[in-house]
């Protein structure tokens, strides 16, 4: 009984960590130019697919991983520079459509380049499972959790202790005021998109040895990351992390105890529930609307 519960908990937290990274990416971009970036799921997919590709072409894993995080970051910069910036004054709906267009382009290119098959690569440090309380835990899950925790701490440091991080926060609070005190808001947007894409890619790189990847996994992962961001109250960093873990755990529990066929529906039932009863998210702050 307990071992089963632990098993579900482990798999939930592992997937939840990847959702948390995706949710952080959403939050970052939502904070800066107030765009909901639907291409976020595709950079998660890119992360995994690129590691697979580079390892297949003979690069050592660490180098492949670095490239698989750097390239999506460049994709994020390109997206901001070429698509979001020229349309900056457009309505939110328009910006959302642009990011959806970008996600189609990325997915289509990967499908042509690497095909429709599912791919994977070996776990970072073997696949001999650990036994804890009757449940098994893959070493890769520890990697996922450990690196996610590191990333969260690094982000916290970046946003609260460095000038660059504070500049981004300031811009998200009030772009005009930020500009007036000399912050290069253009630069802030670029950094936000690069960082957000890198976060998503890290999630994809970490998760792929456990869940496999293919050109079309981005949509679901991205949407669930988005749900996690909303559950955490869009715009709150800590909320995004907790939201990700919560979505992962609830999904795993529901799949285990209720119905695995409806596993993918769980996050979306959750989001409806949250919107009905806790519209600011579970961890979101109360906001007063300005007219």
């Amino acid at each position, binding site marked *: 009984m307990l071992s089963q519960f632990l098993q579900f908990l482990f798999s939930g937290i592992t997937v939840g960590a990847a959702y948390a990274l995706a949710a952080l990416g959403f939050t970052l971009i939502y904070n800066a130019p107030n765009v*909901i970036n639907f291409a976020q799921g595709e950079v998660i997919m890119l992360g995994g697919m690129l590691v697979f590709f580079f390892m297949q072409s003979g690069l050592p894993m660490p180098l492949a991983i670095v490239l698989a995080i750097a390239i999506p970051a460049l994709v994020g910069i390109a997206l901001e520079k070429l*698509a979001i910036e*020229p*349309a900056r004054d*457009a*309505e*939110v*709906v*328009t*910006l*959302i*459509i*642009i990011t*959806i*267009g*970008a*996600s*189609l*382009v*990325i*997915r*289509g*290119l990967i*499908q*042509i380049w690497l095909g429709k098959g599912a791919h994977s690569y070996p776990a970072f440090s073997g696949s001999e499972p650990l036994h804890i309380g009757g449940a098994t835990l893959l070493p890769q899950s520890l990697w996922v959790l450990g690196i996610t925790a590191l990333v969260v701490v690094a982000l916290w440091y970046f946003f609260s202790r460095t000038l660059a991080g504070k500049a981004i926060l300031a811009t998200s609070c009030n772009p005009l005021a930020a500009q007036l005190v000399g912050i290069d808001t253009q630069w802030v947007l670029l950094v936000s998109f690069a960082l957000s894409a890198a976060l998503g890619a890290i999630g994809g790189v970490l998760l792929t040895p456990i869940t496999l990847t293919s050109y079309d996994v981005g*949509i679901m992962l991205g*949407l669930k990351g*988005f*749900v996690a961001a*909303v559950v955490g109250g869009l715009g709150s960093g800590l909320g995004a992390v907790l939201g990700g873990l919560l979505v992962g755990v609830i999904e795993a529990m529901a799949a285990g105890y209720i119905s695995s*066929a*409806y596993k*993918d*529906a769980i*996050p*979306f*039932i959750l*989001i*409806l529930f949250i*919107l*009905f009863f806790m*519209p600011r998210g579970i961890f979101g702050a109360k906001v007063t*609307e300005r*007219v």
Partner: protein
Amino acid sequence: MSILRRHHVLIILAAVLLLLPLVLPNNYYYDIVIRMAINAILVLGLNLLIGFAGQISLGHAGFVGIGAYASAILPTHFGWHPLLAMAAGATIASAIAAIVARPIFRLKGHYLAMATLGLGIITAIVIKNEAAYTGGPDGMPVVALALMGFEISGEKKWYWVLAVVLLFSFWAARNLIDSPFGRALRALHGSEVASQVMGVDVVRYKVAIFVLSAFFASLMGSVTAHYIGFVTPNIADFFHSIELVTMVVIGGMASIYGSLIGAILLTALPQALSTFEGWETVVFGAILMFCMIFMPRGLVPTLAQRFGGRESEGD
């Protein structure tokens, strides 16, 4: 304003629809035109919501799916008359829309986008999983639609049915926009606070337009199911929702005839792209981005402004 001036685009549309069969060479082209008409009506309903109420629905295909599967399941498994099944589908879709919309519209921002996104995906998953009724991922056949012993089948009969429905929808939408209801909607999009101060019941209007567009979507889902004679879960999936929103935005938000243009272009696009083996998704996405960056207001409003004339359906 004479009827002729007021409805001149509508009259042109009617003339085109009358003359089109003279130039359509075979059933393949009939099929494309029929799909364009179905999409145009769907997009019109969605545009009322996006363009006039300023709310985006990312799960509209879910409502289309509800209508399509009501028309597939109820006659096949329970022996309902197809018309009754169609009405049931539209009622269910409207009821779901109403239940969801009430709490959502009390919130500001793009919460409807998230709620409809969830709703659409849940609908698609239910359709895929309840294989005993829906045939699962493989889909299921749909009985033919018969009215008083007259069976609507074949591209030519469907063409005329949809031509009439299309004209009626555009006429109704125009009238709706010019009614007090439509003016309230436009005011709402302009400034929610201002319209509230003027006495517009903001939430009620938004809910009404959302329910109306869900109703439209479900009906057109039923029509699609009967026309094709087969339904698959693809009709309810996220990508279909995105396609519909894209048609609205490319044609032009808040532009009735933009809906028509958007539907025609994006229905024709996959046919034109089928020669680009494998590149369809990339080109589709690139066109989306390109249009939104350089013509954020959509084709019809942008072109109308460029060529001097004010948009025919403007104020």
